Structure formats: structure tokens, C-alpha cells
């Protein structure tokens, strides 16, 4: 059933898809993109791997259980709202930190933490279903 060509080319696709998903995640604040779409892309990368090389390989590549990823993401998203509580007394009011690095200006915000959290939740959520369904299929 396993095709060597598919497995070999999937590794390249996998890396490319993960990189693209991270790029979409990071450009998300000012341009179309963000945690949700990036997360779907990342989940698609793992799903492709599971399809070509089997769920076990995909699980090994992910290293942790998808539910753990969901938990971590949810913690990040929930914590990103707390600075707003301390500084403005309003939950999820996002704070910005502007750094001048000489060459370019780096703008960091708590929205970034929130988006990374969403990214993890989406990957974890999609994969926990996807892996389960693949495994049911295999028996």
C-alpha cells in the first residue's frame, strides 16, 4: 500500500507546509492570515504525513499528544488576556511593545501570544480527530 515516491515526497511537502503555516501565522496581524488559517495549514501538513506514512509516524513527528497541544494553546490564549486585566482592568485588551532594533522596528503584542495559542488549538483539535479517524480506518 505504501508508495515510496509518496512517502519520500511527503517529507519535503511536510516541511514546506509547516514553514508556510508559520509564515501565515506571523503575517496574520496586518494582512490576511493568522492563527486559525495557519493552524489549519499546519494540521494539513501532519494529516498528509499520516496519510502517506501512517499515523504512527505522524504521531512521532508531533511528539506530543494532540490534546496536550490543544491544552497548551488554550493556556497561551487565556493568559494573553491577563496583562490587559492588570494594566487596563479589561480582559483581552491587548498590549503592545515596540522595540527599535536599529535595522527595523519590531512590534510585539499580546495578540501574538493569542494567535500562537489559536494556532496550537487548531492543530491539536484537528489532529486529535484526524488521527482517531485514520486509526479507526486501519482497524
Amino acid at each position, binding site marked *: 500500500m505504501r508508495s515510496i515516491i509518496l512517502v519520500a515526497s511527503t517529507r519535503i511537502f511536510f516541511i514546506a507546509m509547516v514553514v508556510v503555516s508559520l509564515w501565515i501565522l506571523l503575517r496574520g496581524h496586518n494582512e490576511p492570515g493568522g492563527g486559525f488559517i495557519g493552524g489549519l495549514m499546519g494540521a494539513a501538513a501532519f494529516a498528509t504525513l499520516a496519510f502517506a506514512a501512517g499515523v504512527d509516524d505522524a504521531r512521532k513527528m508531533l511528539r506530543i*499528544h494532540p*490534546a*496536550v497541544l*490543544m*491544552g*497548551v*494553546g*488554550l*493556556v497561551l490564549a*487565556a493568559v494573553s488576556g491577563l496583562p*490587559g*486585566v492588570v494594566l*487596563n*482592568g*479589561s*480582559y*483581552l*485588551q*491587548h498590549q503592545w511593545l515596540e522595540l527599535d532594533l536599529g535595522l527595523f522596528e519590531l512590534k510585539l503584542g499580546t495578540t501574538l501570544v493569542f494567535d500562537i495559542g489559536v494556532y496550537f488549538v487548531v492543530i491539536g483539535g484537528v489532529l486529535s480527530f484526524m488521527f482517531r479517524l485514520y486509526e479507526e480506518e486501519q482497524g
Partner: protein
Amino acid sequence: MADQLDLLWPVLIPVMTAALAACFWYNIRAQRIISFIGLVLLFAASVKLTMTVVEHGVIAKQFGGWAPPFGISFVADPLAAALVAITGLLALTVGIFGFYDVRARHERAGFYPLFHGMITGVNGAFLTGDAFNLYVWFEVMLVTSLGLLVISRSREQLDGTIKYGVLNLFGTILFLIGLALLYGATGTLNMADLARVLPGMTMTPGLMTAAMLFLAAFAIKAGLFPLFFWLPASYHTATFAVGAIFAGLLTKVGVYATFRTFTLLFLIEGETLRYVFTFIAAMTMITGVFGAAVQWNIRRILSFHIISQIGYMLMGLAIATPLAWAGASFYIIHHIIVKANLFLLAGAIRAAGGSDDLRRTGGLLKSHPWLAVLFLIPALSLAGLPPLSGFWAKFLVIDASLRAEYYGLAAVALVVGVLTLFSMMKIWMEAFWKASPVTPSRRRYVPVAFIIPIVMLGAVTMTIGLFAEPFVTYARDAGDVLVDPPLYIAPVFGAEAAAEAGALIAGDAVEAEVIETEVIETDLIENGADDGVEEEVR
């Protein structure tokens, strides 16, 4: 300012607990500790919220620092705050019950993240002041409760979960369609804003459709008369801890949403809507109690009783006087505690008697006499016997219906109360009184983890029954806010906007009177024409 943050914690604490528990997916012991700490913190936070509401009245909070109609607001009025407090109490007691009831394989299947996720959805639905956000919390609640319901993956659970899932999903879609129509007509989905805008609008067919879709959606969620079939098809298959929290909370979220919608957005003014609600309330009570009469599974009997009890709560909506609202609020609070306690007791009866089919168990009065006493407290309270909480709850709603001259409704409520007593006596006779049909091979013990929550909830029932006054006063406060939308609008938009809305609502009534007098005048003119007065007018 700091007080308003009280609104945040009853939702944020279970989210964080669920997320942290998921982080420790493989470490069950850590999950248990996190879960218990989360439950204690949640209970403390929800009590704090109720105390703040008692002190300051209705409080509101905008999230993300956005101005009211754009950001998501959370609003706690006395009813919502009380429900959040009861949720905290129930989550804690069911958590203790779960120490023994939740098996290792349930824990590995993600019991703790799902459980706290469901509590998040319930609290979010109680506190949110935004209609679309309410939909989101409904879905959070639905997806986690599906996971909890099917946690053993037995045949019965899969069967029950499919029915539960399909019908509830259909309900939320109806809600979504209603939201779309409402948004199309008003351009806002903030409940306080809707309460400001809607009184000034004429009731177009679109708005009417939205209102009826809301009613249908919440009727599915609450288990009202024609749409309750999913409830007795699924609740009895859950594990005992899950069944108790479902029985206590999930339908009450639907009831709360119905109350919120038809006190704040679409006011019950015309006779038609009253007839509809009176009919639904009476039929819900009757069908529920008759459905219970023929069943043999303890939790199926209790599931049908949930339906009949929800009819009593809906009486408040049908009568729509301040007293009726107070009675309905009191009824919800009493019912959550009693019903969850009975579902926990079903677990204890199963542990003591070996089966939850009444035909295969018996003789528990001899072997576990104290369990019989603990059963009688919520059972008699459910049937409405003094001096338990159910007596005051029934007394308040029936009193309100008599004062408003809804004699038929009051009669139905009384008859259903007697039939409820019959059902409770059936459980009593079969499980406790009659001799056991099988000779037990060994003495069965009820674990202490089962007894503690049952005693706690029973004590609360007794307290409400014996010292009813502060609770009735509180329920009256809750009723006052339900009757008076400006009290809900003021914390969100300020006193000025609330006064305007109040004038608009009052103006509506005045306008109606004006139309009526105009009709009388035209009548006079028409009649006068016959008498030859018309010439004079010309």
C-alpha cells in the same frame, strides 16, 4: 472596577483548568489535582460574584476594552449570578462524587478537560450579554457534553449521544438562523442594545420569525413540550456523575435563555404569546409526569421529571408578573440542586442494589436505612412537600398563577405535583421497601465519595426549605430585574440610555393606548353617522 472583574473568573477559571488538565494528558494524578483545585477556586469565585451582585445590583463588563455594542459584554443580574453560584456548587459536589464514579478509562479519555470545558460553556451562557456569544457558549457546551455523554463508548451511550447530538445541533442551527434574521433587522446582537432598539421597532414578520425561531431553539435546549424527546433518550445512559451535572444544568441553560430572550428582547405583551406559553407550560408538566409513570429505569423516571419540572419554570413566563418571575427564579435554583441530587442518589442506589432497573433491585431500606433517608429529602422536595425547598418553589409559582387568575394552570400544577409524588413513591417502594428479588451474594457498600455530595446537596435543600426568607427575597430581586429591562441596560450603556429605553418601552404601552382610544373615537364617529352627528362634525 475591581468588582466587575468578578464576572471574568467564573468563566476563566474553568477554561484554565480544562486547558491545564489537557496539558497533563498522560498524568492522570496531576489532572485530578488540577481539577479539584479548579473546582474549589470556581466555587469561591462564583460565590464572590453573587455577593458582588447582592451588594451592587446588576453589574456589566466589556471585554477587550471595546465600547458596548461592539465588544462582547458580560452582564450578571441576580438570576444569572445565582445560577453561576449553583453551577459552582454543583461542579464541586459532582467533582467529589466523581472521585469514585469516574473510572480510569474515562480519565484517559479526557474526562477532566471535557468536564471543565462544559462548565465553561454553562457559565459563559449564563453571564454573556451578547446574543451571538450565547450561541458560541451553547456550542462549547454542546461539543463538550457530547464528549462527556459518550465517554464509556458503550452501545447505549452511542445510541443516546447520536439522538442528543442531532437534536441539539438542530436547535443551535435554528438559533443561528434566528440570530441572522435579528441581526439583519436591527444591526446589533448585544442584548442590552437589542433591548434598547427593539421596543421602538414595529413587529415585522422577520422579527416575529426570529422570535419564534429563538423559542423553538431554546425549547429544544430546555426540553419543552413538543421538543423534549432527546432528553429521556440520552440522560440515563451517561455515567452517574455526568448524568447528575447534565440533569442539573444543561436544560436550565435553555430555560435561562428563554427567560432572557422573552424578558429583554421580545416582551410578552400580547395575549397570543401568553396563550402559547401557557399551553406549552401545561403540556410540558403533564407529558413529563405521565412519561415517567411507565418507566422502570430510575434515571429515565427522573429524566421525564426534569421535563415536567421545567413546565413549572415556564409558568413564570406564561404569567409574566413580578411575583411569577420571582417564583420561577426560585424554582430554577431549587430544581437544579434537587434534581442533581436525585441523579447522584440513582448512582448510590445502583451501588447499593446492583441495578438501576427498579424491577431488579429492592430491600435497600433494610440494608441501607440512611440511604433511604437521604433519598427522601430530595424526592419529597421534588414533589413539593413542606418544609422542603420544593414546597416554597411550588407555593410561589402557584400563588402567582392564582393571583393572576390562571386557575387552569394552577390546577395542572397541583395535579402534576401529586403525580410527581406518586413517581417518587414508586422508586421508594421498589428500591427501598419491597424485598430484593435476588439474594445478594455479598453486602454492597456505598462509597463515602458518593455520600458526601448527597449530604451536601440535601443540606442545601433543607436550608432553603427551613430558612426560605432570604432566598425568596433574592428571587424577588431577580424577578424585579427580569420585569424591568432598563435595570439590565443601565450597567452596559449608562443610566441615560436605560432611561430612554424605559421611556420607549413605556411609550409603547402609551402608544397602544392611543391607538385604542383612536379606535374608540372612530367607532363613535361611525356610530354617530347613523345618528346624524356627522353633519355636525362637518
